[in-house]
């Protein structure tokens, strides 16, 4: 069903299409440029030039590795929620809070009505797509996750916040599609943590995608899937991009009990480990997937964004998964 949808959109993919979740590590020159920009040593235009350089690097690298569906690598983003908060009306930047260990981020605060005013990611998508003939995914953070990962001082409830965001994020999806994007990924990593709110996440995603002509993917990770599966299959998307390897492929047991009915981007490498998986390990994981899932529904990718790895580690992990997918394909 989903392959037919892709064909109708003009995209023909091989078996085990390879992709990545979204983010790649920023090269050192971009990290330095971001630090210099924060200290007002360089201009926004100079920073953007470095981000474009890094985007081109990752597009070329993915082509060189033989990845089938590309991403822009999110070189222009700091954090996946803060970036959108910076570009939507109604948000203020909050102070630093901890993500884990010694990593911190500025958690946004919703202080007014949220409003989309201009395209946020479209120029970056156009730039990345202009560098390659392979499809590049449009990449957004979903309304439930933006709501859950922001403080809210304006809306009366979490649902109200989520639905208000959904209406505005839909406008970004429309803008991406108008620009030519055929595959749009709406990341909802927070959707797996409060099972009682899964209906809200589904309702909001429906507002975002309803009736729009694109192949939709959602990425969910690091949560209690046993509480939201199989209910999460009600999400109006074609493909679930899931972190599988970090949890020892435990989710396959859930899929055995209740059939997985969509396409899956199956995470075959752990993004939080410095160790680059042996190809035999990746192959074993994919073969285990094949025990439970139809071959034509499986895409192959890392568990999550690779931005926390070094450039070399990220390339090596992508190389391993592409090699294995290609070998199995044949």
């Amino acid at each position, binding site marked *: 069903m989903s392959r037919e949808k892709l064909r109708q959109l003009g995209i023909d993919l091989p078996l085990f299409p390879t992709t990545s979740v979204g983010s790649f590590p920023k090269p050192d020159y971009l990290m330095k440029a971001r630090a210099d920009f924060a200290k007002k040593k360089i201009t926004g235009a100079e920073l953007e030039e470095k981000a474009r350089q890094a985007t081109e690097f990752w597009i070329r690298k993915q082509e060189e590795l033989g990845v089938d569906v590309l991403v822009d690598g999110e070189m222009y983003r700091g954090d996946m929620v803060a970036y959108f908060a910076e570009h939507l009306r109604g948000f203020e930047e909050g102070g630093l809070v901890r993500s884990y260990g*010694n990593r911190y981020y500025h958690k946004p605060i919703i202080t007014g009505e949220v409003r989309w005013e201009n395209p946020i990611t479209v120029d970056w998508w156009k730039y990345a797509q202009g560098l390659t003939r392979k499809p590049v995914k449009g990449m957004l953070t979903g309304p439930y996750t933006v709501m859950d990962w922001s403080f809210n001082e304006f809306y009366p409830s979490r649902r109200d916040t989520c639905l208000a965001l959904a209406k505005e994020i839909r406008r970004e999806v429309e803008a991406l599609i108008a620009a030519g994007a055929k595959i749009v990924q709406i990341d909802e990593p927070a959707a797996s943590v409060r099972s009682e709110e899964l209906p809200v996440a589904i309702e909001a995603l429906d507002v975002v995608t309803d009736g729009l002509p694109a192949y939709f993917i959602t990425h969910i990770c690091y949560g209690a899937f046993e509480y939201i599966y199989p209910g999460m299959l009600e999400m109006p998307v074609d493909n679930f991009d899931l972190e599988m390897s970090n949890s020892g492929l435990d989710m396959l047991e859930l899929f055995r009990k209740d059939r997985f009915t969509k396409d899956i981007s199956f995470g075959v490498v752990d993004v939080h*480990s410095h160790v680059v998986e042996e190809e035999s390990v990746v192959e074993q994981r994919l073969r285990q997937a094949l025990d439970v899932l139809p071959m034509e529904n499986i895409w192959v990718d890392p568990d999550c964004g690779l931005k926390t790895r070094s450039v070399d580690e990220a390339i090596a992990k992508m190389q391993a998964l592409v090699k294995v997918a290609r070998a199995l394909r044949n």
Partner: protein
Amino acid sequence: MELILANNSSYPRIGDASEHQLLRKTITQWEKGEKADSDLRAAEDRMTELALAEQIEAGLDIVTDGQIRWYDAISHLAGKLSGVRINGLLRFFDTNTYFRQPVVHAKIERTKALLVEDYLFAQAKSPRPVKPVLTGPVTLARLSIEETKGAGGFERMLEGYTQALAPEVAALAAAGATLIQIDEPALLKYPQDIARARPSLAALTAGKGAAQIALALYFGDPAPIYDELQKLPVDVLCLDFTYNPAFVEVVATRGSSKTLALGLVDGRNTKLEDPKTLARDVEKMARRLAGDRAYLTPSCGFEYLPRDRAQLKLRHLSTIKKEFLGSNA
């Protein structure tokens, strides 16, 4: 009714001011080998002192060390135990923070004190009583995995963590702690564990001496298990009031045979609550609370807030207390 102002547990380890960046910078340099262990310890000490000072300045009666030295709520304790190694990242309940998952590969054993030194440091720096906080065995066991599946499962890990933490509670009490908090947020997510929590808590409290034991539950609505909680062998129940607006009515109706710590101030959102509303909530419950005293606390640790907002919320506790006392004057 006496209203005692207390912190819940954690406090931001960072802030936007340069002095609040000390620990982050030091850890980064320490990881590169540019700073020694003693430098790291000194940075942790300094940030702990700042956390204590901010709590005291805000008027709290009982403070914590802010858990400034903790990598996370799980691996900080589990990683110091024999028989446990620390693995990859997992999301911590419904937060956007992550912990490193313990992997139990052998018998869980406490081979050294875990928190006593940190407690003694904090208490020496604080004119107010410091409440040491431990993550409890149910939560540790729920968020751990066994290296060999079927090696005993949750039950065995729970027993192992209980046996390992019981002497730590005794050691903290012997070191002078008068109120020791055991955090069991897992009980709200896995309410079926209440029956198992009872013997675990009994073992933990066996060596408490004159110290009081507080059980803290957060990240969920305690109403469905409220009656069961009243039967647990602890002195104080610290409860999160932010997930269910009707929970105030539950307490006001059923009362409490245990001293309650009222987690009315939201530790997960920056919005400052209306102090009059919260004072009224306290008032509604006051007549039904045991011992004619209660603690007023944040709903959970404050490390989920930016430092400036955590400071405001700490001060807000005093404002709410004044409102409550004013309306009861």
